[in-house]
């Protein structure tokens, strides 16, 4: 394998890996505080992409109730990105209020909550389809106005192409990761979040408003997920509302590999899986999608706490 091809694959791997990473951060935030996987995250991720698409003033296609709908204004991309994320975060809050909180108040088995979030995911994704149809959408190229489509870090004979989109994604992912880590480690609210993830009961006895914090977590998770959705939509086309479910499933592999509830783990896991997918020999490229799940299966059997997680001890 040519060295430049190897580098190219690595770059592709890191690029998609960083998107997996920020997507999975949404899972991780909620897992670390509630101990459950929020399957609806995949739907929120999808919504983010669609919200941003609407906010930049694009028009929706021919199917669905909102056929041919278009917002009367169009925001510049960075604003739309943020806006889409915020709207997604709000949906996250709605989901928390409507399903997670009642189940939590009943002391329901975490598996029931998981199942409920699964139902929400399916319902929301299909709701999108109902409203705007199942077509593929792509962001118009004007979104990255002024920037060249790609940069060649190599030479004419041995090109090492990095698409501008990939750089943008990598930068945004880094920013999000840094901001989140700072937030969790340096702010009062962040420390409160860590406290609740260690022990919710004691935290509330100490005066921490756990309900409010949980809402905040869902908002952040949705925000991050929504932004991830837009970034993916930017990098490849949005192939329809279901692309969130597929991502949602891959995110499971990432979070388990990195270690459930572990933030750096989500990043490590994302990059590892991204690279693993892209380093396949040409003959095996068709099996790319199975790699993440093969890794998931093996990790579960061999080291369920993942790379960076702590071993779980069951209390009798």
């Amino acid at each position, binding site marked *: 394998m040519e060295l430049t091809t190897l580098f190219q694959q690595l770059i592709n791997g890191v690029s998609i890996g960083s998107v997996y990473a920020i997507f999975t951060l949404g899972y991780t935030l909620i897992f670390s505080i509630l101990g459950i996987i929020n399957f609806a995250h995949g739907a929120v991720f999808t919504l983010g992409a669609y919200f941003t698409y609407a906010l930049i003033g694009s028009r929706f296609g021919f199917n669905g*109730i909102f056929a041919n709908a278009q917002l009367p204004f169009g925001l510049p991309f960075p604003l739309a990105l943020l806006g889409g994320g915020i709207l997604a975060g709000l949906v996250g809050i709605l989901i928390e209020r409507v399903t997670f909180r009642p189940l939590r108040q009943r002391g329901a088995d975490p598996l029931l909550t998981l199942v409920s979030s699964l*139902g*929400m995911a*399916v*319902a929301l994704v299909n709701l999108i389809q*109902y409203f705007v149809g199942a077509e593929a959408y792509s962001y118009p190229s004007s979104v990255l106005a002024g920037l060249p489509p790609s940069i060649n870090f190599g030479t004419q004979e041995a090109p090492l192409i990095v698409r501008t989109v990939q750089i943008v994604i990598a930068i945004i992912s880094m920013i999000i990761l840094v901001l989140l880590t700072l937030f969790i480690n340096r702010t009062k609210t962040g420390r409160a979040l860590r406290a609740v993830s260690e022990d919710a009961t004691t935290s509330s006895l100490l005066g921490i408003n756990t309900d409010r914090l949980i809402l905040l977590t869902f908002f952040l998770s949705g925000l991050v997920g929504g932004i991830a959705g837009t970034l993916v939509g930017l990098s490849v086309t949005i192939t329809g509302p279901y692309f969130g479910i597929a991502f949602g499933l891959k995110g499971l592999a990432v979070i388990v590999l990195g270690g459930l509830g572990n933030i750096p783990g989500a990043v490590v896991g994302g990059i590892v899986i991204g690279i693993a997918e892209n380093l396949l020999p040409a003959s095996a490229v068709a099996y790319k*999608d199975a790699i993440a799940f093969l890794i*998931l299966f093996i990790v*579960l059997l061999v080291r*369920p706490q993942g790379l960076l997680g702590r071993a779980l001890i069951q209390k009798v």
Partner: protein
Amino acid sequence: MDQFITTYGFLIILMMLQAVLALSLYLPLMAGQLSLATPGFFAIGGYVGAVLATNKFMPAPGTTYPEPLQSFVVWLASIFPLTATGDAYPLGLVLVEMVLAGILCGLVAIVIGLPALRLRGIYLALATIAFVEILRVLSLNLPITGGAIGIFGVPQPFPDDATKFSYIVIALPFLLLCTWFVYRLERSRVGRAFIALREDELAATAMGINPTYNKVLAFTMGAIMAGMCGALTAHVLNTWNARQGTFDASILILAYVIIGGSRTFLGPVMGGLLLTALPEVLRQAAGIDGLPQWLSLFLSDGRLVIYGFLIAFGVLLFPQGLITPDLFERKQKAATPAPVPATSGGQP
């Protein structure tokens, strides 16, 4: 009557098959395991049926396999003859395919289950999701499964019946057999062990119940059921492809059990029957005059939205599903006279 069968015959067959799938998810659930692997075994079973019936296992024309594989496939082809469209495929062979599918799925279940069932709760659910996804990608790419297109033209035992309702001679007994099996299991020693594991695995092991053995047993039985159903369904649908074994299918089947009832054998059956019929009911409702267009469209196309919300809120409102064991108990209580209350306190 004929009109009814023409319109709903196919749906009724599908309803029965989905009810069996619901039972196949219920079996591991009885032992406390949320396994989403059913569609994987369903897909394997379907491929077994489709591959055997269409002789897809034969080498490409002009080529041969190395011995002894070549002799084996020739022998296989003699047992499963290629049937021209319009000719009836022997019903007995369909049953043979079902048995073979069951055996294969059982073996795969043991191989996968032994390591995987050491996992609990969500980890197990994730492992089964991974299993289904890996199978799906494999089936999209292997030549024997027909790749992305799948396998077409699966021969029909009832070629003259366009409604496929004739399948009821297998589908109904199959459903009844599976239902009776689970009903009897619940009341037997092994079934009690499963339920104890579900209630409190720790206490169950402290009372002498071998968790691994029983969990693998439950998982394997579910797999066999799903595999057999797959082989039959491949014939009913006339075609088979990777779309039969997807994560979405896991969700649907989960809905049957969660909503129908997760604590008694009748729940999954009812759930499977009703929820498979639901889209048709909704479509009829959508056709009612005077409904606003958005509502009508929602009812006809929004089936998955409705299922999704049913699951999401169903676990909240009906944690045990619609059909609960209590319903049976109430009938039992009505039949027996009330016991004399014992004195509490005193001798322990």
